[in-house]
């Protein structure tokens, strides 16, 4: 679960990491009011969970409360990568002398959390990683020992921080690692972490991703999920424990298991079609869950045909078939289906669907070929 910048900054502030003064505004009037309170130049920042927000015009620097109101009116209601901007973070503009990059994330190969820092913060850090990897310092954190002071100090020396800032940098690193660990985060990223003209560290931006698997022990954090910032079908999918990602093609896919779902998309593409989505119903799905999945797929106006590929193990084919039958009884659709059921209770599943006059396939390859055929033909 990804947190908004304003939510991340609240967590930073709670952990004694300085952030600019500011508040959220959802109307131009509020933006003006906050700018008056802050009494100086302010930055308006669209709170959307997509990258490239600055380039898309979602960040504005303004000098007066009047300007803040005008610019806020332009940004609010704008769509950035299709996500409507509903709230702005209005913050004091901070003058700084230097920008650094600070990150904590999991390195799956090492099986450790890495502390990643670079003196070249602010700009495109991925570009730096590609072109001058030596400018990025990384150190692995032992999960049993946590971040040690010397490691943070080494990071400070590597990025050539002035000595008088080392102590403060170590404290900030420790506080952020503490937040990362106690909140079960998988990512904390501050780009840039600046050194202000008053020689203070300050987080001008912030990203936090929480581990969905650990949310059961952070009930307070679950409420932070901003469902207005995501596509409604993704919210619906999560409610039913489905993993759904919308893509650009016209073949709706319903599959059990992420690997098989990806392989199904691959073979569709290989046969000349394009998948409309990734959808994994997980293991042991109930008929209700299957029905929800199918409703989400059929609600996508781009979908011209549906491919259902189930390899029953824990998942029972009869349960899947019941879900399909229920949905088709509820929703009248002309969309052609191709269904491939194999594995646990396959025969029972096929009996349930025998009256539904849906095309069936015996293999993955055959299913993909039929679905691609359907997707290329105009719907009668």
């Amino acid at each position: 679960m990804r947190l908004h910048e304003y939510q991340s900054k609240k967590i930073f502030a709670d952990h004694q990491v300085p952030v600019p003064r500011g508040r959220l505004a959802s109307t131009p009037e509020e933006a003006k009011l906050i700018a008056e309170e802050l009494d100086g130049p302010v930055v308006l920042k669209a709170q959307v969970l997509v990258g490239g927000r600055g380039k898309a015009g979602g960040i504005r620097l303004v000098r007066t409360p009047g300007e803040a109101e005008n610019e806020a009116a332009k940004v609010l209601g704008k769509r950035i990568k299709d996500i409507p901007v509903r709230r702005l973070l209005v913050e004091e503009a901070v003058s700084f002398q230097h920008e650094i990059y600070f990150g904590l994330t999991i390195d799956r190969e090492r099986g450790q959390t890495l502390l990643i820092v670079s003196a070249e913060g602010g700009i495109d850090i991925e570009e730096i990683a590609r072109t001058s990897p030596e400018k990025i310092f990384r150190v692995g954190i032992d999960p049993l020992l946590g971040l040690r002071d010397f490691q943070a100090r080494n990071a400070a020396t590597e990025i050539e921080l002035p000595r008088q800032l080392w102590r403060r940098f170590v404290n900030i690193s420790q506080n952020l690692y503490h937040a990362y660990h106690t909140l079960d985060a998988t990512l904390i990223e501050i780009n840039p972490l600046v050194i202000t003209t008053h020689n203070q560290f300050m987080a001008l931006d912030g990203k936090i991703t929480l581990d969905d698997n650990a949310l059961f022990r952070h009930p307070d954090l679950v409420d932070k999920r901003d469902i207005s910032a995501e596509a409604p079908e993704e919210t619906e999918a999560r409610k039913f424990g489905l993993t759904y990602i919308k893509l650009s093609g016209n073949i709706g896919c319903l599959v059990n298991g992420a690997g098989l779902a990806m392989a199904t998309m691959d073979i569709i593409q290989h046969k000349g079609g394009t998948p409309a989505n990734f959808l994994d119903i997980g293991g042991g799905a109930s008929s209700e869950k299957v029905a929800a999945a199918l409703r989400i797929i059929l609600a996508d106006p781009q979908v011209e045909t549906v491919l259902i590929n189930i390899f029953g193990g824990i998942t029972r084919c009869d349960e899947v078939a019941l879900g399909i039958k229920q949905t088709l009884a509820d929703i009248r659709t002309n969309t052609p289906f191709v269904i491939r059921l194999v594995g646990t209770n396959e025969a029972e599943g096929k009996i349930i669907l025998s009256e539904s006059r849906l095309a069936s396939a015996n293999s993955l390859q055959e299913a993909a070929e039929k679905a691609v055929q359907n997707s290329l033909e105009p719907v009668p």
Partner: protein
Amino acid sequence: MSILVNQETRLVVQGLTGNEGRFHTTQMLAYGTNIVAGVTPGRGGEWVLNGKVPVFDSVHMAVDVTGANASIIFVPAPFAADAILEAADASINLIVCITEGIPVQEMLQVRRVIDNQNCCLIGPNSPGIIAPPLTKVGIIPGNITQQGSVGVVSRSGTLTYEVLYILKQAGIGTSTCVGIGGDPIIGTHFNEILSHFEDDSTTEVIVLIGEIGGQDEEKASAFIIDSMTKPVIGFIAGQAAPSDKRMGHAGAIIEGGMGTAKSKIEALKNAGVKIARYPEDIPHLIHSLQSH
């Protein structure tokens, strides 16, 4: 022979009395696996599954009484990391964790502990291991595969079933199939399994099923070049997956361009691995190897 498991395997089931544990233990018994004990704290002393399996309160007690040497874990995610550590503490040397959804920071700690012990953790989020015709430690359906000489190693669950089924339909059997698990932090990677297959006299060909994310396939490629004499066939799932769904920049900095389907396929090809375009290609590639 097979790798990791065989007729000497004496299995303890952690989480035997839950729904999943009970169902899959019944399946494993029917397949022929030697299940010597179950563990459910608070239910020690019971006999379950028609009196076939004794239940103990701890893995230590199960090992002391039954000589269990392998464990399979069906414990729910919030308690599964603890279950792995308990098994390791009881000197179990093969731990197969089926549980999905263990918090990743807990897995970091578990792996840190396991790495310093003489034990092999498969998973978590693994479908387990099957060595036809008689041993299965996991949830892979027994009827979709048969005894043979192809070793299968995979990061997926149902995609593994698909591949086993396609092989069986083409008349090709399996020596051992190992699902190493789909989570970011797992106990055993491709390389260790490839090494076992290289040493296993029954295995003649290896099928490696990878997917996008991580660098395990890239590392496997290097290992294949250095240490494998047996032919390897690869399939990478996720070639059609969008590349823009990922976490922040930090992940990209670590992966540095690796982790994509393209990078993995290229690395494997450079290691001489024959790449299947889709699962149904795999039997053809195996036949083409055998005709040479």
